């Protein structure tokens, strides 16, 4: 399909509209009352068209996407408006009618394929379920079809991969298998709910290419939901920008990306512009933390070999690399969770004990860690007061009124209103807020070095940027050093002083930011850098062409 074909399809008139939502209102039940989540949004989608839905976390994107299937999550209800799919009003359709549509004419691709695949069944069984249950084709045909689709999506071993269980397949592959599954009944509409958010850049690019390819091949209409404007601009014909359940801006992809009308859209575009001011060379020879030739393994599986790096006072060292390259493992070695088999970790020139159990309270205090997943990193059964207060009490023996005051001060520091937040449970916080709490907890210990393990990966970009700014400000104010682990090069560009590139457990390149980011790069660094989506609708095609040419 090409640009002209699309234009003709669009001028074809109303008959071609596959989905219309008018004045869509959706309510969610929380704190014993119904809150409106989506406040009357209109969506129109034509056959073969890809519509991008973009907005920050909690904007209501998924909710709208699911509403397109006539579906409201547990605890949500469609309270107003119309959803007309191919002439059927989904808000009035019976359960059986809806069931007949779902999976066969409207399909869904979930954000986390790993969670959305049933761990108990083989991929191909899950593939065949919808076509067979909807009576579209017999099992044998569906299987053959699956293999064909797997091939088209460039999955390795298309004939055999379907017989694996979800856990036996990598994240990127699962996401493609899920796309294939959505395609199984050749639906008229697919809802893609952030299909690449959980993937690292190098994998993301493959999945994006596969999706784009398949949607074009079958001329399927799609709702593409994401919070990354760069990604959506590769995929969508039109884009809708949402915020707080309201439409902010809508239009063709290129005009929106090139000339946004609304401030909010501009903010979204500007996200990647944050830059850390350059700092001086480190003074003094003794680095705050030195990792010396560390080799480590999980049991017999070697993970790190000969990793060395220095982190100086008041500086940020970014550690980048694809998933599984050993970034987190390095952090675990430093914190003492995983004693290295060789090498050692020095703190201010003094060797730290390889296991945290034998480290002194003070050593533990000076080195804090923030985790990638704020959901699992803070205890859901404790209140903010206790989460942040604990290090104060534990390390610094601050109790009573004084502790309360400190907690409030810390909350202010991370820009949360103490009166509002101090008594909340983590379940009552957004992802970004939870991550801030994690930061506050680390800060409460008054550390010198904080290890940030992918602290922004789970957050949407606006929130991520806020967090980065916050970290930067704290560094300026408190003189902290950071070890910043990430796979997102944009983040690296924003915050790092020095960069360490890791691949397969080894450091492939390391040095000051400018040095690493100026060509010539190490070939792996090159691959990483070139995989970061750009805000240009043609970027994906270009990169793919370049890469094809290179082979």
């Amino acid at each position, binding site marked *: 399909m090409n640009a002209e074909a699309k234009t003709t399809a669009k001028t074809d008139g109303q008959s071609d509209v596959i989905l219309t939502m008018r004045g869509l209102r959706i309510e969610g039940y929380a704190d014993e009352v119904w809150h409106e989540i989506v406040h009357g949004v209109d969506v129109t989608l034509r056959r073969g068209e890809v519509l991008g839905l973009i907005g920050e976390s909690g904007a209501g994107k998924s909710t709208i996407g*699911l509403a397109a*299937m006539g*579906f409201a*999550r*547990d605890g949500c209800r469609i309270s107003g408006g119309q959803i007309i799919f191919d002439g059927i009003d989904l808000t009035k359709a019976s359960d059986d009618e*809806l*069931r*007949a*549509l*779902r*999976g*066969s004419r409207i*399909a*869904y691709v*979930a954000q*986390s394929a790993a*969670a*959305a*695949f*049933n*761990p*108990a*069944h083989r991929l191909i069984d899950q593939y065949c*379920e*919808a076509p067979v*249950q*909807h009576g579209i084709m017999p099992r044998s045909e569906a299987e053959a079809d699956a293999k064909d689709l797997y091939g088209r999506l460039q999955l390795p071993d298309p004939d055999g991969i379907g017989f*694996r*269980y979800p*856990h*036996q397949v990598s994240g990127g592959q699962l996401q493609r298998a899920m796309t294939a599954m959505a395609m199984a009944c050749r639906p008229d509409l697919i809802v893609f709910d952030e299909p690449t958010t959980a993937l690292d850049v190098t994998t993301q690019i493959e999945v994006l290419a596969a999706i784009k390819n398949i949607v074009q091949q079958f001329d399927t209409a799609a709702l593409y939901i994401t919070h990354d404007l760069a990604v959506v601009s590769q995929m969508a014909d039109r884009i809708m920008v949402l915020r707080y359940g309201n439409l902010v801006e809508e239009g063709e992809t290129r005009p929106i990306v090139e000339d946004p009308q609304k401030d909010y859209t501009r903010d979204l575009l500007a996200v990647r512009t944050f830059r850390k001011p350059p700092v001086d060379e480190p003074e003094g020879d003794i680095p705050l933390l030195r990792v010396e030739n560390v080799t480590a393994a999980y049991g017999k599986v070697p993970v790190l070999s000969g990793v060395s790096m220095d982190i100086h006072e008041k500086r940020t060292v970014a550690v980048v690399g694809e998933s599984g390259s050993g970034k987190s493992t390095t952090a675990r070695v430093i914190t003492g969770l995983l004693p290295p088999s060789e090498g050692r970790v020095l703190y201010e020139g003094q060797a730290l004990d390889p296991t945290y159990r034998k480290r002194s309270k003070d050593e533990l205090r000076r080195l804090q860690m923030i985790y990638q997943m704020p959901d699992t990193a803070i205890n859901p059964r404790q209140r903010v007061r206790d989460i942040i207060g604990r290090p104060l009490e534990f390390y610094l023996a601050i109790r009573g009124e004084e502790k309360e005051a400190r907690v409030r001060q810390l909350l202010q520091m991370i820009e949360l209103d103490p009166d509002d937040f101090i008594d909340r449970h983590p379940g009552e916080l957004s992802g970004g807020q939870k991550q801030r709490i994690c930061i506050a907890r680390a800060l409460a210990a008054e550390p010198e070095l904080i290890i940030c393990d992918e602290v922004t990966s789970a957050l949407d970009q606006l929130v991520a940027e806020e967090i980065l700014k916050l970290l930067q400000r704290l560094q300026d104010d408190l003189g902290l050093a950071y070890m910043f682990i990430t796979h997102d090069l944009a983040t690296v560009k924003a915050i790092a002083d020095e960069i360490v590139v890791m691949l397969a457990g080894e450091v492939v390149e390391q040095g000051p930011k400018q040095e690493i980011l100026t060509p010539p790069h190490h070939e792996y660094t090159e691959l990483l850098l070139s995989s970061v989506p750009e805000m240009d609708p043609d970027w994906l095609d270009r990169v793919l062409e370049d890469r094809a040419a290179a082979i």
Partner: protein
Amino acid sequence: MSDIGKMVAQRLGLGLLTLFVVSLIIFLGVELLPGDIAQEILGQAATEETVAAFRRELGLNLPPHERYIAWLVNLLQGDFGKSLANKREISELLDVRLWNTLFLAAVAAVISVPLALTLGILAALYRNSIFDRAVNIMTLSSISFPEFFVAYILILFLAVNLGVFPSISNISEELSFGERVYRCILPALTLTLVVVAHMMRMTRAAIINLLASPYIEMARLKGLKPGRIIVKHALPNALAPIINVVAINLAYLVVGVVIVEVVFVYPGLGQLLVDSVSKRDIPVVQACSLVFAMTYILLNLLADVLSILSNPRLLHPR
């Protein structure tokens, strides 16, 4: 697969150790009980002299550790020894009764396990409906009634009033299979009422626990029917806890049915064990306890193996 083999071997090894400790505890326990077999058998008729003579005859005058070791040595040679009370070969004694016990347990299991799973699945499917409430109330009430009471009520209705089943299940070897099953129905029903609630509630809870998972949402978004979602998507992932509860209850059906045996005059192992304890017939007590402990260990092992088999992550590690 070889991992499972290794686990089974390791567990069986530990099982042997467990058996050994169990036999030791039981031996000590019975030794500590007031009185010994001589006194208990002679009962009110015991005098110092007769008791002493009896003890001599049974070899009870030896110190306990020697008796225990002798018993252990015999056991290791595959000999359970003889009952002190009536000199019968324990292996013979166990043989018939063990089969009886297993037979009753099997009949009860055949009724109760499918019933519990079905009710659990239906209750999960129609959760919070009248049906769900009714099933819950019924099963909860049935476990609140002591076993013997449930038995009396069943006997009242099914044996005395309606006369469809015999009130006592005194089976013997001559009976045909069908006749045996028929005679076992009432005790099996009693046991069913006792164990169904636990299994049913666990099935229900384990399934409901998964219903908020993304893959269930995905299944709904594929347009599948609610029944299929529960059975095909939730149930397979809820199997591990269910299997464990089923195993515990099966173990109960074998090990814990003394009272039902008494009420229905069913010649099973439980009755033998209780009788032997009260008469301090240590070798029989030990033999029964070992059989029970073994049942427990094997069922647990089976549950663990099945949990592994039911979980592809464990079955097909990457």
